[in-house]
């Protein structure tokens, strides 16, 4: 297991390096420069700025400088936010985004698993139909619509939660719900299908023949087996949350990283684009690693593959 994780970490580093390289050159292909729309700046000033930030060096040199800096934890200096280091910008803004993302992920997947399992156990009853309806709604309504609806009903009308504020836990509830809808719906739908499949399998029949009650069968056998394919959803769902959070953060005025990312693209703020991309990529490879480790814990057939298997 340790060897496996070590190998995976090495692959992760390689992946991140490739992402950094590709993003760097793609970014250089973008039209325009960071200073092209600054009417107040003279040509010599722009030349000075370019000189200062190393933008007039050949691209390969810029690349090497960037990679060297990144390895040492230096993500460069932002062009737009009064010359703050990108690592500082990210550090101050990642907190709310991370908190929202993790909360939404936990709420979405736990409720989704429960809802899906419930629908599967009550297959073809009104409860199943209701759960399926919820899942379809969750998937087809974009999270910013949920965000606005929640804001209006629970925040503005009922005054249960702050509308757009970021101070304590209660201000994170509405954005979390809005973000969690999609993972919840997706997990529930997947879980229902898997669980129905598992519940009709031979070993579940035999488990009932052993004298387990319905609840015992679900808890001891069905849940774990249904979870194996569902866990693979975590990767794509995490990506979804990262991109989804950009809009939702805006709606609830949350000082997060998503908002920053959008701004940095429109202003050709190279170091910030690179920095945020790298942070997103890093989180994603971490999620994928966690999924793979979880996968191994839940499914012994994967954990033991590679080791000796007796016939």
């Amino acid at each position, binding site marked *: 297991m340790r060897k496996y994780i070590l190998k995976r970490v090495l692959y992760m580093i390689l992946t991140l390096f490739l992402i950094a390289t590709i993003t760097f050159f793609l970014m250089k292909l973008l039209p325009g420069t960071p200073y092209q729309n600054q009417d107040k700046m003279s040509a010599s000033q722009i030349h000075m700025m370019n000189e200062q930030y190393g933008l007039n060096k050949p691209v390969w040199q810029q690349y090497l400088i960037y990679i060297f800096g990144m390895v040492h934890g230096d993500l460069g200096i932002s062009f737009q936010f009064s010359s703050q280091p990108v690592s500082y910008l990210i550090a101050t803004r990642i907190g709310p985004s991370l908190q929202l993302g993790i909360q939404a992920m936990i709420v979405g997947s736990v409720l989704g698993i429960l809802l899906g399992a419930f629908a599967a156990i009550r297959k073809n009853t009104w409860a199943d139909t209701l759960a399926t309806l919820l899942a379809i709604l969750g998937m087809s309504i974009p999270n910013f619509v949920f965000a606005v609806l929640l804001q209006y009903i629970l925040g503005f009308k009922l005054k249960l939660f702050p509308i757009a504020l970021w101070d304590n836990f209660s201000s994170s509830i509405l954005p979390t719900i809005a973000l969690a809808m999609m993972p919840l719906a997706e997990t529930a739908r997947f879980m229902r299908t898997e669980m129905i499949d598992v519940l009709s399998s*031979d070993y579940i029949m*035999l*488990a009932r*023949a*052993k004298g387990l*009650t319905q609840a015992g069968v679900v808890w001891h056998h069905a849940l774990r087996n249904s979870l194996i394919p569902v866990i693979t959803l975590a990767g794509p769902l995490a990506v979804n949350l990262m991109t989804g959070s950009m809009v939702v953060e805006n709606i609830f005025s949350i000082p997060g990283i998503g908002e920053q990312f959008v701004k940095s693209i429109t202003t050709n703020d190279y170091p910030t684009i690179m920095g945020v991309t790298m942070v997103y990529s890093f989180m994603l490879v971490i999620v994928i690693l966690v999924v793979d480790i979880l996968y191994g814990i*839940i499914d012994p*057939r994967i954990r033991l593959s590679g080791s000796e298997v*007796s016939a």
Partner: protein
Amino acid sequence: MDNILEVKDLKINFGTFAGDVQAVRGVSFNLRKGETLAIVGETGSGKSVTTKAIMGLLDSNAKIASGSIMFAGEDLLKANAHEMAAINGNNIAEIIQDPMTSLDPTMTIGKQVSEPLRIHKSMSKEKAIARTKEVLALVGIQNAEARMKDYPHQFSGGQRQRIVIAMALVNYPKILIADEPTTALDVTIQAQILDLMTELQQKIDTSIIFITHDLGVVAGMADRVAVMYAGKIIEVGTVDEIFYDPKHPYTWGLINSMPTLDTKAKRLYAIPGTPPDLLDPPKGDAFAPRNEYALKIDTEMAPPFFPITATHSAATWLLHPDAPQVTPPPEIVRRQEVYQEMVDKGLDQPNNPEVKLNTPATD
């Protein structure tokens, strides 16, 4: 011998969009203490559904139209889910066809085999582990203690079926339902598993309901045989009576289509036609359309059971006193002659080794 299980007039329908499929249409049989009763019949004859009803494991669209299943003075058809759960795995256990899918892939086999102990017996963990180890060793899993920590995928098909058997027998159930336990295994493993089952049956004194469509297996395993066709039992008798003196034309057809070492014909016999549609079963004898010996009354009225001996009876109008005398197929006549000779010599005792000379799968 005492009856341990009495099934009376069991009727089970399955609700479908097209209407009710009458899967079991009035099945009655008794299971005696310590015996092996084989239920044979082709796919869809209702044999598995009957045993599912005994364990209360029917699908949700099944409706029990009538009947009773008496076990230990209690009607299992009236038991609720919790009462059934207390009986299943404790008094009545099951082995099913495919060992590759009948074990939970994510649970160690030690845990799976000890599960019935944990459910039914308030046994300490150490005791349960010791018992599990003992039972695994009993079914021939070598190095049982270490292998209890292994997962199903680390075992071969034959080993897995041994584990399933261990799981079924860990509580020493009074009844073991074996639903085609060897169908998914290759022939040499089949023989081993059957031997194991016979051996264990004697050790723990259990009754077995053995469901199969493999007559070779039946001959080697069973004390009595019930032949099912289209949701009904059509003939029941001791294994010798069924194999050597069958009375129902369907049983004739079944035995005729089983090759033996003496089979000379170039082409193996097959019963013509297909089983009837149980959505709308025929009003008379369901086998009549495929039966070359069918009488006129067969299409109008289902035959009752006619007793032949104390242990043997068959539901065919051919046994009615007014029915015309017919000559069964030559293979059956030959068998009847062999049997008559044995009866004359007083060799017709059940489990007489000589009777089973041509039973392929058990040697």
